[in-house]
């Protein structure tokens, strides 16, 4: 989380004084340091009661730290907090709850093996006899669900609930404990577009009932669609605070990054794709429980073309990437890469894939793309350790690896440019740049990219997009799997849409509309 905190001269624009509206939260002069890093520097936050207030900023801008201070995870080094006009000290989450502050974390804090109802009352059982507690909580929750439209099956095990339901349950849990102020940390990161829509509907209802909502996000469209006011943070400081009527996506993005950013599609020209470099036919994948994950999938990747795979997460995209990169051997099907053809009895393996010019930027950066305990130059050769500049006859060349890593960092603007830093110490965006640098470094013919910008700052997103386009223009066949539709539309020349392990549509970019793809993502016209 250690971002470079250089200050750019984008001055505090408008701290609109809001006159009469009472403030639900007023944080003043908040300072918080972690070692040498000022995570929050003189932060002021005013949230009017009964509004939805967005807090946006890149990773490391200090928004999570600020919320952690409000919720009592951290103590500010200095500064004051007022809740509903009262000066308070919040030492821990219990204090926060007592002040009517509830938080829904990005990673849900639920016990999978308990039911929804049991999760709500866990730690707040109103009676020592469980069946009485159960009845008390149930009647209260029923009323709450009725009033807010947050419907959850109370007797289902959390493990069986879809992600959207789990989130609703988290919100219910906070409301049950008397939250008047609700903090939501990146609530839509795990939701489908439909679930997001539903969530926003609920949040609007809650707002109309007087609940104050703090929304931490990096999705500016959502801020524009839902919030009343927005605070932009950068480098631990508030750089902008304004009513939504005065805000625009472009303006907010610029304030977040500190310079102009170009996110959308650069050109709409139709380009001629080249030879087919990789193709799969009739790929069938079953998981350990014998559930079919890919139903006889066919796909061709051609030189000089970016193919985007759209779909709600968990509809076979991950399996597709694993099959194409050799990590997963399918139950049936064939794969042709260059001049070699593989079938299910003798599938491609990741090492061979690299030798044949196939590079893979995996979806899960933490689990797959890097060894987080390794220093940067060790992670920067992962999978390529047999290259002659890295090792000879089984002996690793430390100087070779360090030099190569320094060069990769330079080329891909990885910050800090320190090959000796542990991989886990880089921010998400810089980790991703290092992984891209490694995978693009050997000039692959085929490039598979999963979630190219997940957890990546806007500034880095722009850079990553430009690198992928450069690869395409150089004749590489690129496959991009992303759960962000905007990303697919910004990058792809051709889009395929997946639903439940099948391709439900294949469209040239000029034929793509958000609504059309959205429909295909849910299974297509019936």
């Amino acid at each position, binding site marked *: 989380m250690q971002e470079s905190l250089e200050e750019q001269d984008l001055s505090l624009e408008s701290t609109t004084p809001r006159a009469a509206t009472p403030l639900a939260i007023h944080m003043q002069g908040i300072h918080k340091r972690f*070692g040498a890093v000022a995570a929050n520097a003189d932060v002021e936050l005013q949230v009017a009661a009964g509004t939805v207030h967005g807090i946006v900023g890149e990773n490391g801008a200090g928004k999570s730290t600020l919320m952690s201070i409000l919720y009592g995870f951290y103590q500010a080094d200095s500064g004051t907090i007022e809740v509903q006009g009262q000066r308070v000290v919040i030492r821990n989450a219990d204090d926060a709850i007592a002040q009517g502050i509830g938080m829904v974390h990005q990673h849900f804090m639920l016990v999978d093996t308990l039911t929804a109802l049991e999760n709500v009352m866990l730690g707040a059982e109103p009676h020592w006899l469980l069946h009485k507690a159960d009845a008390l909580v149930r009647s209260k929750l029923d009323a709450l669900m009725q009033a807010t439209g947050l419907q959850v099956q109370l007797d289902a095990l959390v493990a069986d609930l879809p992600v959207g339901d789990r989130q609703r349950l988290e919100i219910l849990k906070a409301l049950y404990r008397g939250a008047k102020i609700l903090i939501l940390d990146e609530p839509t990161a795990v939701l489908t577009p439909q679930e997001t829509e539903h969530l926003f509907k609920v949040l609007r209802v809650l707002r109309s009932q007087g609940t104050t909502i703090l929304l931490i996000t990096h999705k500016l469209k959502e801020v524009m669609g839902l919030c009343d006011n927005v605070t932009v943070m950068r480098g631990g400081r508030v750089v902008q605070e304004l009513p939504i009527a005065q805000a625009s996506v472009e303006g907010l993005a610029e304030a977040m990054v500190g310079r102009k950013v170009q996110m959308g599609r650069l050109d709409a020209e139709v380009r001629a794709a080249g030879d087919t470099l990789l193709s799969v036919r009739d790929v069938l994948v079953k998981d350990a429980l014998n559930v079919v994950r890919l139903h006889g999938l066919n796909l061709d990747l051609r030189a000089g073309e970016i193919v985007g795979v759209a779909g709600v997460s968990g509809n076979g995209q991950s399996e597709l990437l694993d099959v194409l*990169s050799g*990590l997963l051997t399918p139950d049936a099907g064939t794969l042709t890469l260059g001049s070699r053809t593989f079938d299910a009895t003798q599938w491609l393996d990741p090492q061979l894939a690299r030798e044949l010019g196939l590079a893979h930027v995996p979806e899960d950066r933490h*689990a797959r793309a*890097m*060894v987080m*305990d390794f220093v940067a130059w060790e992670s920067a050769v992962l*999978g390529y350790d047999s290259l002659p500049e890295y*090792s000879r006859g*089984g002996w690793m060349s430390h100087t070779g690896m360090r030099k190569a890593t320094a060069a990769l960092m330079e080329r891909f603007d990885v910050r800090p440019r320190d090959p000796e830093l542990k991989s886990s110490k880089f921010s998400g965006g810089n980790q991703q740049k290092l992984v891209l640098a490694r995978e693009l470094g050997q000039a692959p013919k085929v490039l598979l990219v999963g979630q190219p910008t997940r957890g990546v700052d806007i500034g880095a997103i722009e850079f990553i997009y430009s690198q992928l386009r450069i690869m395409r223009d150089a004749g590489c066949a690129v496959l991009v799997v992303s759960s962000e539709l905007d990303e697919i539309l910004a990058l792809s020349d051709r889009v395929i849409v997946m639903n439940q392990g099948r391709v439900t549509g294949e469209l040239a970019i000029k034929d793509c509309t958000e609504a059309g793809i959205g429909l295909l993502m849910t299974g297509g016209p019936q």
Partner: protein
Amino acid sequence: MNANYTLPRWADLVLLPAVCLAVALLAAAGVVALVGQEPSEVLSVLVQGAFGSQRGISYTLYYATTFIFTGLAVAVAFHGGLFNIGGEGQAILGGLGTGLVALWLSNSLPAWAMLPLMLLSGALFGAAWATVPAYLQAYRGSHVVITTIMFNFIASSLLVYLLVNVLRPAGSMSVESAAFAASAKLPGMHEALAAVGVEWDASPLNLSLVLALLASLAVYVFLWRTQAGYRLRAVGSSQSAAEYAGINVRHQIVIAMAISGALAGMVGMNEIAGVNGKLLLEFVSGAGFTGIAVALMGRNHPVGIIFASVLFGALFQGGAEVAFEVPGFSREMVVMLQGFIVLFSGAMVYVIAPMLAWVLSKVLKSGVQHG
């Protein structure tokens, strides 16, 4: 942001273990005082016993040699992401391998051929013994912690069976093999030093100390300088990343355990070839488990393991002196002291480290202000 304390590297490597050790000694001193002894006297006898004479130093290093082997064994497995609790059994099997080849060939082979053969055989036996749990873990999913513990029992029973029923010379009443011929004796340190003109008291300390130091160097080079070591560490830190890199995780598990077992198996060179000159019971006597503490304290790094081994060797040797010299101070008190050291340098490190970081930050800050 989870790490809300950070220690400078020098403090992490030097100051922190020293502070942990000091805290352990303080706690032990408290207990010593409780039973009515003078802590400072006990400590001085302990240090005197461990380092005060040639004989004391020799014994300390002799114990340390065994701990280096078992500590390295734990460390290599740890870097491969495996917790090898089976050092004890692998050391027993290693000693068996060393001893069997000596019984078989020591009458016909000269020392220059015999000793390398014994080393190789011990390492192979240890490696083979570790490979079985490794295979079960890699291909069948049986956890090595469980299987290696069980293999310790099997190993010790196997040794008893072989000594009682097979290797015991006819008519002998003691449970041990026949003595090896002279060619199977690893020279003592005093003999080696005498050859270069240095006088040193006779002791069990033998040339396997040199072997242990070479093994430490080899482990360092292997883990951090070779491709095989890189891949082993990759698997140890993140199996899914290793898979992605095209590394065969199952092979690496077997390789890591085999190397680990081979290192534990070299204990036989110290105890069997260096000291006893015959196979007998109880020659490992818990060193396999002490190796876990040693690796823990040495942060799984060969240099740390050497220092931790010397510390534990000193505790063994000095502790024996204390039990002998100080009336009313039993052997169990020494075990307690070892327990404190394991507790504070292993389990309590994460309690002590943030406190130390806090103190350091205060000290450094005030230094800046005054300077």
